[in-house]
Structures are given as C-alpha cells and as structure tokens.
C-alpha cells in the first residue's frame, strides 16, 4: 500500500496471465484434494476439508481479480526507493538472475559453498551493472569467504567449504 500510486500502463497480458495461472492452480488444488487418502480413522473432518476450502477460495479470488483487470482496474506495481516506475520491465535481468541461482545451486556440491556464492555474487553484481567487472569479481569472492568464515567458522553453521578448502580449519562449520 503506497501513497504514491503507480499505474502500470503497458499491455495487460501479464495482468491477465497471473490470475489465470492462479485460477489454474486452484483447479489443481481442488482436483488434487480428491486424491488425498482419507483414513477411516480421520473422523468427521479429514485431511481433505481444508484443501477443498482453500482451493475454492483461491478460485473465487483469482476469478474476481481477473474480472477486475478486465474491467480496467490495472494493478499498481509496488513502489520502492530504487524502483523507477517509468522504466520498462527488463525480463532479461530477471532471467539472468534466476539462471545464476541455478548455476549456484549446481555448484554447491562440487565446488563448496564459498566458491558457489562467489559466482552468485559476482554474476548478480554484473547483472545489476557493476563496472569494472574485475573489481566486482574480487569483491564477490572476498564477501563469499567472509560469509563462510563468519558463519561456518565463527557461528558454526555447517556450510561445506568444498574440496579445495577442505583442510582450512577456519572455514569449517
């Protein structure tokens, strides 16, 4: 809820797709509720009751949101200190950040947490426009190892240091 309201003025395609997607999820929730095994011992109210209520509620709410978009009530995108409401959404940035997360997740096991985190930080900083890139890489690596040292070494959170740093005591949780 913001005082400075922002009208999203581009095509309402996404505005319609989102509630439609939620409506589809609601149908899945309702159909899936029928598949939940209801033991005879469950008594009057079994594990299916709330799923039916939630699915039904979700369907009604999503359809109501859909109707309100069709009637011209376009949503206000959220405001924020670093958000420029007049800029067009850069989907590429979002896709790049999600891809970086995927890479990070894959790298945790083979490389260990600090290197995987360095990749995530550096890549994200680049995506957000950090220049020069070399400096961002150095800062990213430094921050990843500081986090590893403080949380694994200091606070005992078991982040895996990875095969390269297996022998370094202060990186161990």
């Amino acid at each position, binding site marked *: *809820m913001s005082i400075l309201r922002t009208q999203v003025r581009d095509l309402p395609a*996404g505005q319609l797709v989102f509630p439609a997607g939620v409506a589809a999820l609601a149908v899945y929730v309702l159909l899936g509720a029928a598949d939940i095994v209801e033991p005879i011992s469950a008594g009057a109210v079994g594990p299916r009751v*709330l799923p039916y209520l939630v*699915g039904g509620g979700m369907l009604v709410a999503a359809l*109501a949101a859909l*109707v309100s978009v069709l009637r011209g009530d376009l949503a206000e995108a959220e405001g924020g*200190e670093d958000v420029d409401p007049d800029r067009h959404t850069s989907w590429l940035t979002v896709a790049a950040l999600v891809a970086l997360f995927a890479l990070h997740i894959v790298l945790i096991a083979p490389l260990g947490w600090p290197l995987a985190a360095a990749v995530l*930080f550096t890549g994200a900083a680049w995506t957000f426009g950090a220049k020069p890139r070399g400096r961002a890489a150095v800062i990213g690596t430094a921050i990843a190892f500081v*986090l590893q040292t403080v949380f694994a070494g200091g*606070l005992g959170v078991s982040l895996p240091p990875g095969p390269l740093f297996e022998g370094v005591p202060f990186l161990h949780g």
Partner: protein
Amino acid sequence: MSLLDGFATAAQPIYLLYALAGVFLGTAVGVLPGIGPAMTVALLMPLTYSLEPTAAFIVFAGIYYGGMYGGSTTSILLNTPGESASIVTALEGNKMARAGRGAAALATAAVGSFVAGTLATVALTFVAPTAADLAVRLGPVDYVALMVLAFLTVGALLGSSVSRGLVALTLGLFLGLVGVDAISGQQRYTLGVPVLTDGIDVVLVAVGLFAVGEALYIGSQLRKGPVHVVPITKGWRSWMSRQDWARSWKPWLRGTAIGFPIGTIPAGGADVSTFLSYASERRLAKGRSKEEFGHGAIEGVAGPESANNAAAAGVLVPLLTLGLPTSATAAIMLAAFQRYNIQPGPLLFENESALVWALIASLYVGNVMLLALNLPLVGMWVKILQVPRHYLYAGILTFAAMGAFAVNFTPADVVILVVIGVLGFFMRRYGYPVAPLVVGLILGPMFEAQLRRALSISEGDPATLVSSTFAVAVYASVLVVMGVSFWLRRRERGLEEVMAAEERAAGEPAATPADRAADKDKEMA
C-alpha cells in the same frame, strides 16, 4: 516481579552485547534502501540459528526495533520513498531535509520513536499478561474465529484490492498444505518429491518473497543514475530547537495513543496507524504549522514515526498471547519461535516465563540503545545509504541463498527459495501484496488443527463454530473492522488526492509517479 527477573537476565553483559548487536545490525540493514522491517528480520534470521533461545530472541527484539528506526532514516534522507510503514514520514521528513532541516527531522523521529517505543512497551508489559490470562480460557472454536478475523483483515485489508489480497492469502494457505498432514499422516500435494514431505519451511518463503522477490523486481526496474542523499548539517545544536521540542511532544504522545491499540488489533498494522496519525496532526495543526504542512512540518514526522513504533510494540500483544501474527514481520518472528519449538500463545507466559520477560525487558533496553546510537551515528547511516546498488542487491541475493541453504543444508531448499522468489517477483510486478501470503502460510496449519479439533468435538456439526459467545463477538467485530477500514481507505485516497492537487498547485516539479506518467503522456501526445 517477573519483569524485574527479565531485566536481571537482559542486563547480563553477554545479553547486553547481543541486544547491542541486534539493534546495530537491525538499524544498519533497515537503513539499506529497499529493505523494510519484514525483510530485515527475514534476512538476519540465519544469524540466530546457532544461538540459544534467550540470546536469539534478544537479538531478534533488537533487529525488530532497529529495522523500524533504520527505515525512517532512509525515507527522510533519500529522495525516493520506500517501505510503506515509514512512507508517511517521508512526506514531511523529506521536505524538511531538503529545506536544510534534516537533522531536526531525524531527531524528532528518533526521540519520538524512543518515547513511543518505551510507552508502548510499558503498555505491552501490562496488557500482555492480562490478555494471556483471558486467552487461556479460549477453546478451539474461539481460535477458529480469531484466525478467520486475522485472515480477513490481513488478506482483504492490506493492499489495494480485496481480490488480490485474498489471492495472496490463499496462495499462502496452499503452500501451508504441502507436506504430510500432521493429524492423519497423509501426504498432500507433495508431487512425490521427498523434500516436500516435510512441508515448505516458512524461512524459505519469507526470505524468498521479501529478499529474492524484491531483488528480482528491483533488478527489473532499477533506477539508473547516481543516488541522491540529502545532505544534513553536522553538530548537536542543529538537531532540535526549543521550538521543535515544543511542537513535537504532543504529536509523539498522540502517535503512541493511536499506534499501540491499532497494532494490537489485526487491522492493517503500522500502515494504518501512521496514516491516521498523519491525518490527525494535519487537522490539528494551527498557524505556522498549518502553513508548513506539505512543505516540511515537524509534526508530520513526529506523529507518524511514533505511531509506527507504538504499533510495532502493539503487534507483539496478539503474537505473544494468542500466537497470532497480524503483520508479515510478526509472522516471521512466529516462525523464529517455532524453530526453537516454542509456541507463542496463552501458555507462553507460564511455560517460557523467563524467556518472554527477558524479551520484553530487552525491548526497553534496545530502545535506549537505539536512541543513543541513532543520532550520533547518522554520518555512518548516510554512508550505508550510498552503497552502490549493484553490490547491495548482489549481497542481498547471496545472503538469501546462504540463509536458505542453512535451513537444512540441502541445495533443494535453495531451489524452493528461487521458485518462491520468482512468485514474489510476479506478485510485486502485478500489484499483489506479499504479506498475506506469509501470514496465510504460517497461520494455515494452526487454523486447520483448531478447526478439525473443534469439528471432531462436535462430531462434524458446523454449528459448533458459532456456539461460543466469544466467537460470535469476533465474527461481529469482523464486520465492524471491515466497515471501518473501508471508510479509512476512502479517506486515505481522499487525502492523497488533496496532496497531489496541492503539489500541482504549488507548481513543484512533478513528484508523484502518477504525475510523471501524466507528463509523459503529454510528451507523447
């Protein structure tokens, strides 16, 4: 007596140190632009993973109040307003800063927060045990009614439209269903994936929605160009003049009186209280103050900022005594309690008496620390405001990834984090509020347990749900709260229109996005 025991605990040097760390980190992270109190608490949760419960909650209390303090600094000194709870502060505070009175705005916000925070904590000290005594007598039927109240107020009243709020709420309720049903032991919506059988951890959802979703959203629409921080004059003398004090103390007290009760009832939390305080200060202003409103009136900072902090303490009443979170931040705090297998509710004051009173005592301590820290360190907060945005958001994402991984030390949790983050991005992009989702997720399983308990006692007769006077009274109050809040919302909209009109009349450069959009339209035409 119990409060004194609490102080005895909180005053141990090690716990004072934890409290200091909490308020310091909370303020530092809260000052960061784009980070509201809910995200501050969610992001800093991993810090407390390895602490024992008392230390963890003392740190948490510090983070909670510190995050609130930090937010007001941001909205006064940055040209671009941020999180909703302090956005009203930005209206007058930012204008004061630009008129060279930034130090006075920061000072009245800090002292007002201290006064309101302390008075509201005193109120909490007296109200909470009484409320807990009453709450012990509530049965499952009454809890069902209270949770319906919380669902409807949080779901339907936060955000701009009822249907969008309810979409968010039901999405949260659905995520709460995933996993093994605690009562019958049956799997629900697990898609045969082993990770999902344990359910979706609240930490993943909170960090995913608030940190990852927010960073993705900001990344997609990042404001380009340098960051403008309004410069402030240095030195003690410029903080508050005698006249500033004279104009501030009444708004502080009025803000407290408005904020605390609104915080305790689930009616939209801090947002509503800051707006109400702003509106009443504007109406009560006379003479010079009246002329200054809209151009930087100190009352417009003192009142809402106090209301904000008083509401933050008020929110703790239903959280601690009923186990009902009425804001996203409170929902995340509840998740933190559950990590330690502590269930907030009427029995908390009996079973975990030492912990609760240490927590409440540390709220007093934290408030004093914040007052002492905030003003002298203002130069440091300004530096934090200037952190390059690419490193800031890269850091938030990395920290979020670490917090998610540290929940169970499995990369699968980071996958869930990203999926929730993308959902959060789309919700922001298309104007769906995220707070109801968090509240739905955490209250859903509690609601189901109470509902099924109530109905199995009555052997399936739904009439049992209106069988207690308390429950009927709650359902009646749902109607009243809905009515009042729709009235408030209409007034809020009216006020916005008045202010937009004044802004145009004053011939200032277009300051609202709507105005900017209108200008753009003209250019295109």
